[in-house]
């Protein structure tokens, strides 16, 4: 990788923005968006890049929150001085999605009417709504036009939505390991996760109390999801058929213990309602296929970089190719590469020299070419 430098200590911030009319007709007031920024905004405000996170991600994309913080942000490999998203050059904004539980408006926000958290009475949020909230955030910096919007998985859907919701507001769009709509299989995985939550005795129609959250259901949902983020190769390599390291009561196999650990650590940092809201947003996102998709993408003006990963069976390369072909049919400027990886869907998060090279090459290309 190009550099091991970190953006250092970063401060999570929250923006309280104006009203937002959501896709389903309800109005979010105020719209709160959690975010972080890295690098310096140029005087002309023309070097800003928006980074969009995936399902369980958040605004903390790079750097550390404190000196004792052991783990950096989720995309620290790619965001920093001298890295693919070079913070010496660019002003990087990483924004958290509404509907989530990491500081933006979502089911955990306090309903001003009841004085209690919204829970499942929070309005339905779409990918388009998430992007609309990001647009308010970007405008709050006085930025008219982003140099780039980039994201992987759900973040890729947001980036794609940006290109058609606000065609004049971005120069470049990077879509990694993503899709223009979920297949039945992808919806099926999410449905199993949601059903695990709904069947938890603590679920209480989404009006659960802090003291008794549907932890077991959420942990199961995460276990299910986590399987789909890995690959057969990765699991063989990591676990094989190894017996458990401990905890015989819970699992016979190392892979099982691992998933249980992943599930249990997830419930400490994620809200079950948000899991339902965000996976619903993913499943409902649909720009269509073939000619319908071409038509949906026709307003886009920006350049595109689409990247897929050979071992990603959750968002397979064929879904990225669908986007690329529709962009080409619609006469858009697009780069497409399928990177050979063994890491499955999570590939876009991991160090990869080629991924760094293509992002850097794409961003370095003069704007008018």
């Amino acid at each position, binding site marked *: 990788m190009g550099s091991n430098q970190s953006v250092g200590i970063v401060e999570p911030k929250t923006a309280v923005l104006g009203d937002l009319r959501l896709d389903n007709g309800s109005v979010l007031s105020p719209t709160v968006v959690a975010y972080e920024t890295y690098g310096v905004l140029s005087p002309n405000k023309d070097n800003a890049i928006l980074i969009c996170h995936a399902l369980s991600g958040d605004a903390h994309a790079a750097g550390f929150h404190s000196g004792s913080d052991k783990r950096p942000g989720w995309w620290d490999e790619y965001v920093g001085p001298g890295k693919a998203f070079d913070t010496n050059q660019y002003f990087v904004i990483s924004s958290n999605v509404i509907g989530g539980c990491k500081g933006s408006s979502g089911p955990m926000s306090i309903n001003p009417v009841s004085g209690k958290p919204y829970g499942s009475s929070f309005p339905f949020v779409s990918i388009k709504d998430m992007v609309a909230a990001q647009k308010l955030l970007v405008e709050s910096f006085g930025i008219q036009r982003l140099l780039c919007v980039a994201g992987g998985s759900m973040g890729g859907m947001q980036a794609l939505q940006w290109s058609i919701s606000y065609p004049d507001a971005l120069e470049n769009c990077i879509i990694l390991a993503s899709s223009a709509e979920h297949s039945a299989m992808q919806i099926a995985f999410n449905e199993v996760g949601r059903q695990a939550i709904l069947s938890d005795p603590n679920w209480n129609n989404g009006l659960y109390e802090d003291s008794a959250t549907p932890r077991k259901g959420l942990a199961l949902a995460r276990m299910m999801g986590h399987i789909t983020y890995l690959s057969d190769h990765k699991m063989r390599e990591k676990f094989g058929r190894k017996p458990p390291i401990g905890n015989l009561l819970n699992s016979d196999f190392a892979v099982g213990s691992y998933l249980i650990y992943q599930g249990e650590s997830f419930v400490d940092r994620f809200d079950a309602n948000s899991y339902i809201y965000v996976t619903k947003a993913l499943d409902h996102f649909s720009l269509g296929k073939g000619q319908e998709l071409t038509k949906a993408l026709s307003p886009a003006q920006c350049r595109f970089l689409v990247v897929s990963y050979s071992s990603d069976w959750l968002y397979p390369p064929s879904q990225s190719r669908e986007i690329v072909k529709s962009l*080409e049919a619609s006469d858009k400027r697009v780069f497409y*590469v399928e990177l050979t990886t063994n890491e499955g869907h999570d590939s876009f998060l991991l160090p990869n020299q080629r991924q760094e090279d293509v992002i850097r090459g794409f961003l370095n290309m003069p704007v008018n070419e």
Partner: protein
Amino acid sequence: MIDSKILSSTTLRERPDFAYILDTISPGSRVLDLGCGNGDLLYLLKQKGIRGQGIEKDEDAIVECIRKGVYVHHGDIDEGLSHHEDKRFDYVILNQTIQETRHPGDIIKECLRIAKRVIIVFPNFGYWEVRFRILFQGKTPVTDLLPYRWFNTPNLHFLSVLDFQEFCDIRGFTVEDRAFFTDLKQVKFSPNFFAKLALFQIR
């Protein structure tokens, strides 16, 4: 002008076929380069104000193309160009690609649908050195344009100038232009014997 540092290794002097193509296609045209390799030709076309894009299956070559700012699609041309509208491009270029495709006839037909003209460049199997190697060594020839051994070659077809001319006649393709090259220059006399590389422009 052209930033030679960004090109991998080739210069126009070494690639008379590139020079010929650059001369043929006018600025403002739209070009699709099938099997564009590391994007050198597309990069040169871009410098001339020609809007190009490429398809390539080699991952390293694709990364190189993106580094050069050449629009590319990572994929296999055998898997279809069907999403492109009729006559979307002024030219489709198949530069030393056609011999590697499974169904050259189908691909050329599809190219003629999406482009006004198709430029096909291929290593000439009728070249004298190739003929002599078969004749005197009795082995599948390995030359600079056909640099592979029989067991590791990506080339599925071996064709000569006469073969391709015959193919165009059979399929009813109109040959608009032809050019033949050795290493550094064009060949006019007896091209099926003296040309290493053949270029056909068809419609």
